[in-house]
């Protein structure tokens, strides 16, 4: 019943490429978001959309590159995270919507 799982065998020896790429990507995405905001180049809604998209990318980078999300029980772990983020979205968007009745 226990199928053996995918490990990133390049992690055992040699250079930690995944981590370094993940780190650099995260830095780039962080500064990109900061730049979008500080430059004030885009209208408000687009700025917000941009930084959210950049945040989501960075989170995916970190989940895959730092946290090895897809290792071992990758399928169940990914489902767990995905469902968590789905509920998170429902909670955040839902709450803002429900509570926005123009007080």
């Amino acid at each position, binding site marked *: 019943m226990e199928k053996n799982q995918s490990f990133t065998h390049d992690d055992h020896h040699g250079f930690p490429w995944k981590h370094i790429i993940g780190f650099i990507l995260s830095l780039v995405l962080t500064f990109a978001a900061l730049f979008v905001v500080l430059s004030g180049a885009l209208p408000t809604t687009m700025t917000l959309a941009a930084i959210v998209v950049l945040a989501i990318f960075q989170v995916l980078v970190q989940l895959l590159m730092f946290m090895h999300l897809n290792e*071992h029980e990758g399928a169940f772990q990914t489902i767990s995270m995905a469902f*968590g983020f789905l509920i998170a979205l429902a909670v955040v968007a839902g709450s803002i919507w429900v509570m926005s009745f123009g007080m």
Partner: protein
Amino acid sequence: MSETHAVATESRGPLEYATKDGQMKIFGFWVFLGAEVVLFSCLFAVYLAYLHHTAGGPTAHDLYEVKGFLIETLLLLTSSFTCGLGTHELRRRNKAGVLAWLLITLLFGLGFIGMEVKEFVDYVGEGATLSTSAFLSSFYILVGTHGAHVSLGILWMIAVMIQLGLYGINPVTARKAFIVGLYWHFLDVVWVFIFTAVYLTGLVL
């Protein structure tokens, strides 16, 4: 149940997955992280709903400073990277390497906490307390809960480092080190959202 305790059944793969017990604990921790995602989402929901509920008190624009939150971000991100390097050394079965990178991770983490404590103290000094407004209540609880998680993580990481020092790298200590690493990385994932939805949004909206 005889394979669940610390007898490695596979010598080539990462040690933390070598026992059934290790596999179950790591998987269980991922499930726990799913719960933590929802926990933080509630804190974010309330924070965003109360963004402008400042009750005449200090606002995000009044308080947040780019230099401060950028440094916090870089400290935590770097610590997540160094923690990852620790896991890499763990898989190379290099005890000294693991301890070195975890120590560096800890120091960056302490730096992060130090800056955050200073940030809170400064805000309080400017009259921005937990009971000033709903906005501030939610700011302190969101960022404070994250900070409390990091502080707990620091203590946890120290405990794991002590055990690595005492017992070396075996399936049990490898699993513990891997899990505290997962926890640490997760806290940086949450911070990406805090950086975005709290600090950057605070400059925009």
